[in-house]
């Protein structure tokens, strides 16, 4: 793990704006997030717009022949990735509440989310 320990700690944010299953981005962003855990960075996950659907409870894609990767969001805590943020306005627009989400998250207003994003050093969006 030597090469991963650069001594530099940056604020990383993975911004999820896309729904799961219709495209691969949600799944492959999750793979990025898991790898990032090995680098001891300050990792943040934001779920805004259709990205909120990624952490909807009860996903069951067996009939569409696609892997159900949503349980992996629950495993993030085991990788010390605990800074998950969801936007309140986006949830309301989609008729969703915190009870619909499969992981504990911090609910932020759009204004708060914008301020948080502005503090980041590296923003990865998909």
């Amino acid at each position, binding site marked *: 793990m030597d090469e991963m320990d650069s001594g530099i700690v940056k604020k990383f944010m993975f911004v999820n704006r896309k729904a799961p299953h219709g495209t691969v981005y949600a799944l492959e962003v999750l793979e990025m997030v898991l790898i990032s855990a090995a680098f001891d960075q300050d990792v943040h996950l934001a779920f805004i717009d259709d990205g909120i659907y990624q952490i909807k409870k009860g996903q069951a894609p067996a009939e569409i*022949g696609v892997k159900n990767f949503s349980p992996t969001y629950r495993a993030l805590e085991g990788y010390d990735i605990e800074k998950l943020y969801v936007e309140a306005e986006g949830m309301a627009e989609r008729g969703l509440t915190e009870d619909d989400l499969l992981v504990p998250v911090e609910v932020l207003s759009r204004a708060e989310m914008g301020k948080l994003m502005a503090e980041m050093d590296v923003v990865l969006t998909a």
Partner: protein
Amino acid sequence: MKFGILVNEGPYNHQASDSAYQFAKAALEKGHEIFRVFFYYDGVNNATSLGQPPSDDRNVTKNWQKLAEDHKVDLVVCVAAGLRRGIVEGNLAPGFRISGLGQLIEAGIQADRLVTFGD
């Protein structure tokens, strides 16, 4: 009834090819005929013989191949779109064939319905 199917996107990145496959399977189960599946745009990437998706995920190319084996479905990859993107005879998965865009227009003419799946 004879269906033609057009697949516009590559595997995994978009659900389009999965949806097309599920549609084709359901049509065959109902006794319909699949006149042809045509792969255009990034859809040509469905035909790569080199893909190795994780073992716990579906293999889109293998799904198409099985459909071709079991039901003699004609899987046609557009030659021009394939050349652009590096899908050529050398890495074409068995069960697919490479041909011209005319095969799509022909499917539109000969099939009773043409159904498109894309982005």
